[in-house]
């Protein structure tokens, strides 16, 4: 060969790759979350913007600092902590004191992710770990909801937002509003389906607009970056169980449509239960995992003390994921006959 000085590379096959990459998957999840994020800012104004920004900043900073402290290159560039930060922010009630948002953000990444070994090793969804801790520590603040679309939401803040660190916000002068789920739970008052789907209700920052969340999810499914089996199984389980209950006693049990479009179900089913790290790898495992999440959600909402149960349902699903994988191990090619014989 004329270029005899050239060194040829020796490498094992395959010599081509599909082009998929962790950072591009994570970046696309961030893109898919943007419509819901933008709607949260639009609906809740400055309070929404500050909650989301603080959530994102605290998560990203924690990841960066912890990576550096352990002498490793920062993994902020793989976009996974951006997802955690956004999701965490979207699950919070706007108007939550910012210091609480920051504490939760540190917990998300430090306890939910870094402690387990970082990306790929976390058992639980980091965003939900942070939220669960906040829910336990500050139950009142975490269930104080401001109404969406308030006049002057872009120029003024709810008084609770800037509460001094380590103090609880005063609840006396707050303008609050019940979420559709608590309305149903405590006064059996149903919210119109269209309001639920489009997001003209109060609730956590990102959970109110089911349609935008659904769109983001469909984008990811179309790009094969989300396992469609998980949301489908969750929705199916919720519809079947709540539908059966609703048929028995429509006055006591909410309709399946209400169940689907209220609270954090859409956000949880589309973006949190489908977190690749915490969900099963086998197809049958995904169906079981989704069904479990759907059932537990309805059970908590119907008979539990809390109006909402998506978070605990997903965390339980995360915990059982290794078992789902083990129970649904695919039959290795060429071993069917052997199993039948034994």
């Amino acid at each position, binding site marked *: *060969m*004329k*270029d005899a000085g*050239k060194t*040829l*590379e*020796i*490498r*094992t*096959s*395959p*010599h*081509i*790759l*599909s*082009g*998929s*990459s*962790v*950072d*591009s*998957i994570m970046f696309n999840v961030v893109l898919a979350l943007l419509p819901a994020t933008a709607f949260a800012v639009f609906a809740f104004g400055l309070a929404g913007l500050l909650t989301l920004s603080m959530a994102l900043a605290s998560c990203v900073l924690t990841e960066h600092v912890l990576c550096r402290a352990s002498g490793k290159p920062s993994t902020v560039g*793989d976009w996974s902590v951006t997802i955690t930060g956004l999701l965490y922010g979207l699950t919070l009630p706007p108007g939550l004191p910012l210091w609480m948002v920051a504490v939760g953000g540190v917990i998300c990444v430090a306890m939910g992710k870094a402690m387990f*070994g*970082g*990306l*790929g*090793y976390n058992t639980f969804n980091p965003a939900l770990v942070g939220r669960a801790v906040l829910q336990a520590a500050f139950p009142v603040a975490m269930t104080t909801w401001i109404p969406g679309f308030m006049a002057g939401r872009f120029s003024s803040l709810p008084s609770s937002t800037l509460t001094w660190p380590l103090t609880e916000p005063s609840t006396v002068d707050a303008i609050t509003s019940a979420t559709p789920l608590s309305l149903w739970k405590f006064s059996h008052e149903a919210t119109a389906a269209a309001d639920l789907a489009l997001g003209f209700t109060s609730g956590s920052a990102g959970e109110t607009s089911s349609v935008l969340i659904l769109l983001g999810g469909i984008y990811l499914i179309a790009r094969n970056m989300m*396992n469609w089996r998980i949301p489908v199984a969750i929705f199916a389980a919720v519809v079947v169980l709540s539908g059966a209950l609703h048929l028995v006693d429509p006055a006591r049990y909410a309709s399946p449509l209400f169940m689907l479009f209220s609270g954090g179900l859409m956000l949880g089913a589309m973006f949190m239960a489908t977190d*690749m*790290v*915490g*969900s*099963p*790898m*086998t*197809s049958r495992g995904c169906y079981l995992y989704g069904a479990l999440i759907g059932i537990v959600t309805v059970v908590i909402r119907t008979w539990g003390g809390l109006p909402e149960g998506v978070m605990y349902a997903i965390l339980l699903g995360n915990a059982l994921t290794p078992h789902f*994988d083990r129970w649904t*191990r*695919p*039959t*290795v*090619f*060429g*071993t*069917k*006959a*052997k199993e039948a014989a034994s």
Partner: protein
Amino acid sequence: MRLLGTKTFRHGVHPPESKDETNGLPIRQFPFAPLIVIPLVQHMGAPSIPVVTEGQEVSRGERIARADGFMSVSMHASASGVVRKIALAPSITGRMVPAIYLEPFPGSTQEVIDGTPCPLETATPDEILAAIQEAGVVGLGGAAFPTHAKLKIPEGKFVDTLIINGVECEPFLTTDHRVMLEQSDDVFMGIRYLLKATGAKKVIVGVEENKADAAAHLRERFPSDIDGSVEVLQVKYPQGAEKMLFAALLGREVPSGKLPIDVNALCCNVATTAEIGRLLPRGRGIQERVITVTGPAVEHKGNYRIPIGTPLRFVLDHVGVAEDVNRVFLGGPMMGATASSLDISITKGTSGVTAFTDSEAERTHMQVYPCIRCGYCVDACPMFLNPSMLGKLAANEEFSIMADDHALMDCFECGSCSFVCPSHIPLVQQFRVAKTAVRKARSAR
């Protein structure tokens, strides 16, 4: 199994086919290198034993080495010339192997000499197998397993269906495609020999949908004396793997650790079949084969009939390679092995020579992330293994757990898991290391 109209197997991947640049190019004869180096180990099994001496003049097609036992085959001179020496030569693995150095006569007409024909009508199955071994035929798809050994039906077993593998699922390669289009008569003659040798009643030729012209060509010419059909398969990698082909065409799963004969079928690559049909009637031996020389770094891409033993360096010099050539591998990009040296020879198992430039190579130099359990590999693995789990075990060198609890030894290294992995974990490489360690441990026991 039939999905979306065309037959296929479950799981698998869809790499870009990259065949358009060569699948329309007719097979052309390649020139003779000034020095041809014919390794005596080109097949799985025992090295052949030379029957020529240094300084001896040989004719093209003359036998120059004989089989050493059953798991071995003959070798033939790929050019008329002089045996310069019998000495060690580099092979693709980097190991030195014995080889016959042959210097072709310049200006010779290079007539191929015929041997003792194997008449289809009168030959017994054992005579056909002996003739196949004598002709030096090995699996031309890449595995280079001695064909007569594969066709030998063990006591108490039988074959009802013969599968001819014209799938060629490796990207870039188009040799089988061209052979089916240009040598259909050889293919059918080969099928007649194979049916007689194995006692199979019927034959199915499996062709991927991207070679629909070849499938149509074969169907049109399908002789009435052969009971069989041409089946079109969905384009999916690794459809050409024997087990996947049986699953797609016959709906039969070869049991783990067993051979195709255990499901009463045998499979033969279409190029191998064509060689049998071309060589046996004239008593000739394999002294050249069709090879796709391709890849972005190759200037004159094409399908060439290249003499066995042609140095890789001569092939690349003749077709011309780009300045920024980075990687040269024998076979296709999914399973092909990179050439450890340009002084290695083209052998019977070489189905392609592919050369990449820096920019294609760059695309495989990706940052490795931790496994994010996306499950892409689980959905890709045609053997229904869990490459993610195997990869984590491999990283901890838990080789025996991999083999005992996670069916490591069923992995045939197709590379689908590595291809789809978004974390760019070198899964199949880890499995090769693990399999070698397990084999070593088992043989030590």
